[in-house]
Each structure stands twice: as structure tokens, then as C-alpha cells.
């Protein structure tokens, strides 16, 4: 495969696309698929074929990846094949709407189905998700048609591994798995490490509950991840890659498996890629349901066929990782950013975002929010704009209480910090963290003590048991939180809880334990009054805890802050 051949494939794919007068794009990612969008697609195909001889127009029905707004599915985008930007997005399309939808092609859009979502898409900058919803994820040529694999060929034929790493460093890209470690620095450490065999691992063990960005990227645009990994392999000198995917994501596994096969067939994986001496191939490894395997050393242990338990670092995987070889581990979203950076240049990427956090971040906006779905926003956008602008605010007239980011390692951010511009540092300053990108909005029907207990239960059951602070500490903290929820705790219990947070945070072996106290610490920081109400008055203002909710008249007003 040479640059010219790639361009030819791209031209053919686009000519194919434009040969149709209209196109109908149906989302067949998990969210819409759960509402039988695959059957909807078949019906649309049949209806379009039946209408074609009558209208004399050709219509192409395509199954695509995620269009973002999962709650409003099944989503269908229709319009002129030549101008994807001017297409109409329909939400909640049912089988009964198919006829009207096909007949409307070339005429006025069907008003009752039209999704009025300008607000949702305003302010979003799609980089990682640029192809999501526009290409058929199972067709490599459609990816190539949208500039796919140009970055790989550019890197292999025009750039040295050193220049590739320089570009990634200059772009300011940081690890999107949550830690925010500079990607360029990680790559250069692996590149410098000595070893005959090096590995590239893609961490797709998205265990963080409430987050589904990686699943969506794998299901909607799998080739992008493969291209990013291949470029990384070239940059660090690795010839072998692994994608470690959760077994809970069967659709992502299927699409990734077929995408790897297509990439091999096109000569974009394997030996002598693009006529150079560079060889690289990727294998899939299935996770088996252990949250701790998101930690890099635990993930490596799992690929080696062992229990997924972390080990002390150093040595870091960059020096001694998989089977003792230098290993580069990055998250799905990090790899998904690589190709655009190489294609469009580091300066372009670095021009988006804040001083220390560059580019965009994909968030899964869920919970008590009107527009639930996947958003990609530039770093530096205030939380308020994401939640009340893009997200459309809290539904059912309820009051916003907190937004949870960072999953079980993160924290709850209250209203007063909503004007915070999103960046790695700013989120840590308010006691939360970026995490992999789950953003769960809570209203006044959620009890913050109960939420802290929920996360502690998660950490307790997911603790691998290797180090004592995490194994025993999370269990003790869970019991204390349960006592508070039940209205049976004393002030001494609260003090003990705070002490334990400190111990577990500072003495645990890996990230799971070190961050397990975060949900408690952040809710204590902003919602201490809720803890005190449970302890002093056996009162849960949200009415979800076992201690029950008391009428305000029974509580003295002075003791209950608003």
C-alpha cells in the first residue's frame, strides 16, 4: 500500500458514496441497537429499494456508529449524499415512520421526527468522534475515504520515529485514561528503553461505571484505534500490539476483530507495511470482568494469563512490562487522537484547549440530565456549559445537586464550582479528577452519603486483595458508610472514616486503593451537612437511605442548612 494506492481507494470510496443521490445513516451502535435499529435499517433498505424505480433517485442506507445522543434513539440521519453537513437528524424513529422518511427525501423533512439539537452540538469539536455516525465501522474503505491511514503512511514514509514522538509531545496530548500523563513523554521513554521486542497495548478495559466513550469509539470507528496503535508501534519500535477489551462489550470485540482482518488484508497491518520494513500486528485479548485490570501492571498480568493484580512500580511498564519487555500502554481515546495529530500537525492540536490540557475530551453525559449521550468538547469549557448548555440541564423541574466525574476514583462537584473550566488540574483542585470521562449528573433526589457508599461498595468488591490497606480499608469504610446511611453512626465513626480515608489513600499499592477514598472525601468536603443530618438526626434529605426522611418540622431549622 502506497500513498497513491491509498488515495485511489479513498477516491473510489467517495465516488461510491456520491453515486447515490441520498443517503440514510442509521446508528447501529449499542444504544440504538438495543432499540432494534438493525431491523429498522433492514426496513429502510427495503423501502428505499422499492421507492427507487418510482423516483429515479438512488438512495444508500448505511449502518453507522454512534451519533451521540443515545437517549433519543434510534437515531437516523438522512439527506443528500454529497453534503453530509446539511443532513437532517431524526430521533426516536420507529418502523412505522419508515415510509414517511423515505418519501421525504429531496423534499421537506418530517417535522415530527426532527431532532432539534442545535444546542447539543454547539460548542462540540469532534476529533476523536469525527467519523462516528458518518462511516460504516465495518468498512475500512469508508474510513480511508475520510482521510484514514494517511497519517500512518505519512509517518512511515516522511517521518522518523523521533519526529513522530516530537509531534506527539508538541501537541500536548495527555493520557485520556484519566491520569493525564504526557503521551509524548511516555512514548519517548519506551522508544529509549532497551529491548529486542517491544509491545504496544491499547487499554480498552473501560471498567469505570457510567462511562462508555471507549466502547463507542471501538464500535463506531475501530480503524482509527488501529491506525493510532500502528503509528505508536513505529514510533517506539514495537512490532506487536494487544488490544485488551472488556468481555462485556461483545459488539466492540466483534467489530474490532473484523477490522483487524480488513486492515491486514489491505496491507496496513502485517509485514512490510506500505512497502517499508516496518512490521506490526495486533491481537485482541478479552478482559474477564475485573475493574483493577485498568491499572497498567494488572492489565499486563492479565494478558500474561495471571490474576489481574498490580505490582509495585518502578520498574514502569515502559521499561519492563509485558513479559519483561518495554511496553507502551495507552487508552483507546489517546490512540484515537494520534492519527489526526500526525495528519494535521501538532500546532493545530495544541491550539485547542487550555495551557496545560490540550485538545478535546470525550465525555459520557449521563444521569439526571435532559440530553444523555456522548459529547466531545474542547478542554477549558466550563462545566456549566456542558451540563446546562449541551446537556440541556436537569429534567422534571428538579434541582441540580452535583456532577460526578472520574468514576469510583473521582469526586462530586457541587453547583458552586460549575464555572470551572475543564482541565486535568482544575478537576483535581476541586477534589475530583478527569478520569476516563464519565460525567454523571445528580439532582436533589440523590443522597450524597448513599452515593459515596455506592462507590465504596464498588471499590470494596473490585479490590484485588493484594495489599491490606485497600482490601481491609475499603471494607471498613463501606461498613462505616452503611452505618451512617442507616442512621446508626456516631461522631467517632465519622472521625474513624476520615482517618481511614487518609490511610488508604497514602498506603495502597495501586491507583484503585489510592483513589478509593476520593468519593468520600469530596462529598465530605461539599456535603458534610448531609453526613451530619444522617448522624445527628437520622435524617436523609433525599429520602433514599434506610434511616428515612423526616419532616422538616421535626428538625430544628438552625441545624439544617438549606
Amino acid at each position, binding site marked *: 500500500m502506497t500513498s497513491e494506492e491509498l488515495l485511489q481507494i479513498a477516491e473510489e470510496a467517495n465516488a461510491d458514496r456520491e453515486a447515490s443521490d441520498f443517503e440514510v445513516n442509521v446508528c447501529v451502535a*449499542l444504544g440504538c441497537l438495543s432499540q432494534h435499529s438493525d431491523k429498522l435499517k433492514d426496513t429502510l433498505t427495503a423501502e428505499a429499494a422499492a421507492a427507487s424505480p418510482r423516483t429515479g433517485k438512488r438512495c444508500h442506507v448505511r449502518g453507522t456508529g454512534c451519533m451521540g445522543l443515545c437517549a433519543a434513539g434510534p437515531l437516523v440521519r438522512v439527506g443528500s449524499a454529497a453534503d453530509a453537513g446539511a443532513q437532517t437528524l431524526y430521533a426516536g424513529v420507529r418502523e412505522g415512520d419508515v415510509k414517511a422518511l423515505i418519501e421525504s427525501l429531496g423534499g421537506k423533512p418530517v417535522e415530527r421526527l426532527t431532532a432539534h439539537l442545535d444546542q447539543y452540538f454547539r460548542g462540540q469539536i469532534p476529533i476523536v468522534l469525527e467519523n462516528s455516525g458518518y462511516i460504516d465501522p465495518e468498512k475500512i474503505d469508508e474510513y480511508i475515504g475520510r482521510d484514514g491511514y494517511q497519517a500512518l503512511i505519512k509517518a512511515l514514509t516522511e517521518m522518523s520515529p523521533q519526529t513522530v514522538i516530537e509531534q506527539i509531545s508538541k501537541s500536548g496530548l495527555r493520557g485520556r485514561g484519566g491520569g493525564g500523563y504526557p503521551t509524548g513523554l511516555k512514548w519517548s521513554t519506551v522508544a529509549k528503553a532497551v529491548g529486542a521486542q517491544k509491545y504496544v497495548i491499547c487499554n480498552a478495559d473501560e471498567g469505570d461505571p457510567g*462511562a*462508555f466513550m471507549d466502547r463507542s469509539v471501538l464500535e463506531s470507528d475501530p480503524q482509527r484505534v488501529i491506525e493510532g496503535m500502528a503509528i505508536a508501534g513505529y514510533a517506539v519500535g514495537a512490532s506487536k500490539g494487544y488490544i485488551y477489551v472488556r468481555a462485556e*462489550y461483545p459488539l466492540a470485540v466483534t467489530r474490532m476483530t473484523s477490522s483487524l482482518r480488513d486492515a491486514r488484508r489491505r496491507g496496513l497491518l502485517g509485514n512490510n507495511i506500505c512497502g517499508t520494513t516496518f512490521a506490526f500486528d495486533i491481537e485482541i485479548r478479552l478482559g*474477564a470482568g475485573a475493574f483493577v485490570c485498568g491499572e497498567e501492571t494488572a492489565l499486563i498480568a492479565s494478558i*500474561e494469563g495471571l490474576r489481574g493484580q498490580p505490582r509495585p512500580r518502578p520498574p514502569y511498564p515502559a521499561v519492563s512490562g509485558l513479559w519483561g519487555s518495554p511496553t507502551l500502554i495507552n487508552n483507546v481515546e489517546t490512540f484515537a487522537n494520534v492519527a489526526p495529530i500526525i495528519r494535521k500537525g501538532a500546532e493545530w492540536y495544541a491550539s485547542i484547549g487550555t495551557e496545560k490540557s490540550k485538545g478535546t475530551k470525550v465525555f459520557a453525559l449521563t*444521569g*439526571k440530565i435532559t440530553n444523555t449521550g456522548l459529547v466531545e468538547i474542547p478542554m477549558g469549557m466550563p462545566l456549566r456549559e456542558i451540563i446546562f448548555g449541551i446537556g440541556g440541564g436537569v429534567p422534571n423541574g428538579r434541582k441540580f445537586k452535583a456532577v460526578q466525574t472520574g468514576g469510583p476514583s473521582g469526586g462530586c462537584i457541587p453547583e458552586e464550582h460549575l464555572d470551572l473550566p475543564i482541565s486535568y488540574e482544575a478537576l483535581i483542585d476541586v477534589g475530583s479528577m478527569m478520569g476516563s470521562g*464519565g460525567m*454523571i449528573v445528580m439532582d436533589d433526589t440523590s443522597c450524597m452519603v448513599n452515593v459515596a457508599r455506592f462507590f465504596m461498595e464498588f471499590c470494596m468488591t473490585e479490590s484485588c486483595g493484594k495489599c491490606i490497606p485497600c482490601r481491609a480499608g475499603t471494607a471498613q469504610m463501606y461498613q462505616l458508610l452503611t452505618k451512617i446511611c442507616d442512621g446508626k453512626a456516631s461522631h467517632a465513626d465519622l472521625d474513624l472514616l476520615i482517618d481511614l480515608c487518609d490511610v488508604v489513600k497514602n498506603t495502597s499499592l495501586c491507583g484503585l486503593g489510592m483513589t478509593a477514598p476520593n468519593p468520600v472525601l469530596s462529598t465530605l468536603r461539599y456535603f458534610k451537612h448531609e453526613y451530619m443530618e444522617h448522624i445527628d438526626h437520622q435524617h436523609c434529605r433525599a429520602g433514599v437511605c434506610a434511616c428515612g426522611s423526616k419532616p422538616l418540622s421535626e428538625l430544628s431549622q438552625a441545624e439544617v442548612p438549606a
Partner: protein
Amino acid sequence: MNLAPPPLPSDDKRWKIVNGTMRRHGFARHALIETLHTVQSSFGFLDDVAIRFVAQSLHVPLSQAFGVATFYNHFSLKPAGKHTCTICLGTACYIKGADRLMAEAEKRLKIKAGHTTPDGNISLMTARCVGACGRAPVILEDSELLGLVEPGVMLEQLERWAAHD
């Protein structure tokens, strides 16, 4: 060490699939998890015979094989019921009332999460986020994903399963 591979535990064809996975990985020790995945998907659970067979074939100590089989949530050591109702307990689902769904299901089936009804008909399981948070709360009825689930809808399905007994 050149030990001959053990004979297949029985003439059940599924053992050949399991053997195929191990052969594809050259009977390397690190194929343990991949092989257990194959056993789990072919047989539905890992029993003593299967774990011993895999451990022996891959020359992995039995302690390690059992260690791995019990460490990961995805592997089950008991057969599942005819039907499985899996309730997602991810954060988004929890905020949207998955705990109420769980309470209703436990009440209706008279079993705790992770167990199967005594007649072997329905298993009630939990999931740690299936990644369909946009449709929370979600449940899996057998392997079919259902979003925005109201307790009534779930209970109806449980009744239908119970009636087909």
C-alpha cells in the same frame, strides 16, 4: 519438560473447541484466560473437570488455574439458570433507580443477586456497567439489552419466563 497433553475429558464435541483455542496459542501458559473464556462460552460455566483439564494441558499449576477462575467476575463456577436477568449496577443506572429494580427482582424471585431459582429456571445477576449508560437503567434479558427499564416491564418478563416452565 515434555508432558503429553491429557486426553479430552469426554467425547463432547465442545472439548475440541476448547482444545482448538489452546492449540491456536501453542499451548502457552498465558493462554489460560483465553481458554477459560472458550470453556465459559461453550459450556456456560467452569466446572472442576474443565479447570483441571485446561490446567493440565497448559502446564499451569492447579492453584493458578483456580486462582484465575475465581478472580475474574466473568467466569462462573456454577451453571446458570435457563434464563438470566442481569441488572446493570453502574453509576448511571444506580442514579436512575437500578437498586429499586434489584429489590423488586429479588422480591419476585425470592433469591439474592448472583443466585438461581431452586427450579433452575431464572438466574439473577448484576453487571458492573454494560456501557449503555445513555439508556439507563438497563437490564439484560438473557443477552438482549433493554434500556429505560421500569420495574413493571422487568417483572412482566420474569412472569413470562416463569410461566413457560
